[in-house]
């Protein structure tokens, strides 16, 4: 059986980055992911026997994030929320711009972008999770890439240096 502490140390940060990209809030992301790992620990004997325990934790974290997001959305507008992570040692402006760009997408499209480009989930798995067709997911991803271009500035072509 995989040791829980090793599993936790190996997967916590990566999963929190994904949920952070979805929420745009470091504290919310850490709370959600910590809760998911607590639930995994409570069932560790069974979870550790799964083919991919990390996938189980990721699903629980995303279910929690989606559920919590619905509550947050009704409390305030995402754009006007005071950011607790914009402090001196916070993420750089480019990273904030990316998260801000994602924030302008509908929740399902934002999830698709994060799950595909951060969690490396294939389109088929995202389609299953969101109960939509694969073409819908590809459309979401394309709209997300357009939104990134709108918010992150014009595309730059790197010139090869001799």
């Amino acid at each position, binding site marked *: 059986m995989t040791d*829980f*502490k090793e599993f936790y140390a190996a997967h*916590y*940060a990566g999963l929190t980055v994904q949920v952070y990209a979805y929420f745009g809030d*470091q504290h919310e992301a850490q709370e959600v992911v*910590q809760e998911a790992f607590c639930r995994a620990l409570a069932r560790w004997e069974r979870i550790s026997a*799964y083919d991919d325990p990390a996938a189980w934790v990721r699903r629980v974290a995303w279910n929690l994030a989606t559920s919590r997001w619905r509550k947050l959305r009704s409390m305030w507008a995402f754009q006007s929320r005071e950011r607790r992570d914009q402090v001196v040692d916070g993420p750089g402006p480019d*990273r904030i711009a990316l998260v801000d760009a994602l924030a302008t997408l509908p929740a399902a499209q934002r999830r698709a972008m994060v799950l595909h480009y951060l969690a490396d989930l294939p389109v088929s798995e995202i389609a299953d999770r969101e109960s939509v067709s694969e073409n819908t997911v590809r459309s979401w991803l394309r709209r997300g890439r*357009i939104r990134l271009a709108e918010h992150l500035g014009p595309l730059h072509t790197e010139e090869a240096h001799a």
Partner: protein
Amino acid sequence: MPEEYTEEQTRAAFGALHTDMLPRFRPPGAEAAISAVRRKRRTAVTVTSAGVAAVLVAGAAFVTLSPADRAVVPPAASGKPSSRPAPPPWVQTSGPAGDLAAEAALKLGLQMDNKERRKKGLPPIIMAYAQAMTSNTGGGIGGGNNSDPKAVEFTIDVVCFGQGTVQVSFWTAPKTGHAKPKTAATSVEFPLTCSADPETVTKTIHVSAPLDLAYVNIRPDKSAIGKAAVAHQVRTP
């Protein structure tokens, strides 16, 4: 055509975010998670209400699948005989009795791999879901897409794992008319008893008009809240 980032540029942007943010999220330490779980377990043991005690007793009985149930579980890709596949994404394992949702899904053999079903000549699964029964369950209505204009019937397979009783409503209606079940032929309501070794209940209703959707509403009785989980799938017969 609007300008868009390429796959490469998008992955690079996300990769930079990952690199930048990863060091900022140091895990609080597994000890924090272990302490939190121990606190929850101590609280559960010291509560003396009969309802919570029943959950603990029932939970112990649900940990091990019966040999018949194990046959439903597909073989693990790794070939390890002791490993089990994780529940599919549409199984809601969060919240109280979340474990029961996973067990209910396994009992039903819940699956939505319509490509595999088509290969075997089976009709597609329109809707599949498994969730624990909470005090909030029953307020929503699930609607399954029906892309087959020739479908004349829908069938639901449903099972309840745990304790208590749930009320199941199953009907067809247009997308805009989900709150208005029509005739006895296009709707059915029935109580479903939950148990540690439940039988799957199957009901079939008539599709009133081409491309009508299937709707399912499951409402737990007080006896089932926090102590039961329901798995269901809707298909054409």
